């Protein structure tokens, strides 16, 4: 379903963590483009939204794995598994994602 995540004007450049329907999402604003991947690093508990962004990659703040913002694939160890990628639509200044609800992880 279509879920409103944020107003584009409220998003700073770089990463922002949002939660919606049980998803933990790292939004990255680069100029006026917005990318969204799963916030939790696929290697260990860490928030990718706090990582540094280089081109269209984010570097995990904990062990330094970098993830592609468009595909979710890790480009460097120690992570070997991709993180989810969310399809984002920005219209009328609002950032939306197409999400299915998931159970909250315990």
């Amino acid at each position, binding site marked *: 379903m*279509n879920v409103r995540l944020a107003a584009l004007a409220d998003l700073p450049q770089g990463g922002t963590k949002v939660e919606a329907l049980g998803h933990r999402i790292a939004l990255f604003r680069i100029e006026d483009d917005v990318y969204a991947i799963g916030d939790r690093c696929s290697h260990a508990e860490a928030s990718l939204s706090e990582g540094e962004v280089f081109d269209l990659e984010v570097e995990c703040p904990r062990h330094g794995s970098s993830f592609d913002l468009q595909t979710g694939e890790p480009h460097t160890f120690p992570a070997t598994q991709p993180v989810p990628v969310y*399809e984002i*639509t920005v*219209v*009328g200044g*609002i950032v939306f994602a197409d999400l299915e609800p998931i159970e909250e992880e315990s």
Partner: protein
Amino acid sequence: MNALSVAGLRVTFGTREILKGVDLDVPFGELHVLMGPNGSGKSTFCHALMGRPGYETTGSALVGGADVLSLPVHERARAGLFEGFQYPVEVPGVTLDELISEMALVGGPGVAERAAEAVRSLDAAEFLPRMVNVGLSGGEKKRSEMLQLAALAPHVAILDEIDSGLDVDAVREVAEAVEAMRGPELGVLVITHYTRILRYLTVDKVHVLMQGAIVATGGRELADRLDAGGYDVLRRELGITAEGASGGDFLAGL
């Protein structure tokens, strides 16, 4: 209450009376088709309802229960009347995204939400940063219009010749988009003189406009009969002399 309820609509353009008492109801949830030969008044019906200058009207046209005939164009739109144009106008300098932002200022946050859904279902994200309709193909313009329709969520959508100038694939795409918009809160009136788009639509009723009045109303089979035999079949059955077929009249209707 109907999505659209037109009663005794007479329309004069200059000294010519083009519509001579049109009665037409489109209930919520239904899709009706208005057909008629060239010069019968289909486009006039559309222009007069939307409030195009130069058309003198009497009678009533209720959109979601409210008479719109005395309102200015933008208030008719706010009352829930949407017109999809035969040839959508290009608006250089205004992007589709800006247009939707402006709609949202008036129509509330639901506008952007519905627009986002339609952007996905119509695969129309590429249109958002572009100037409204500028440089789009015929089929793309119609998709852009369907996106605006979805965002505004009107009571009634009048789609004037939405199939003209489109190739077969684009006609099917537009028809599928129209079907996807259908719901219990929307009435749709498709104006056409071709039946090819009807192949892809689930039609509740067909109305035939001739010489300024609705002369026949029926189901899908009425359109099929017109497709097979032309409007002359209906003229003979109803004893209508083909006044509208003379050259002068045809040109006057353009």
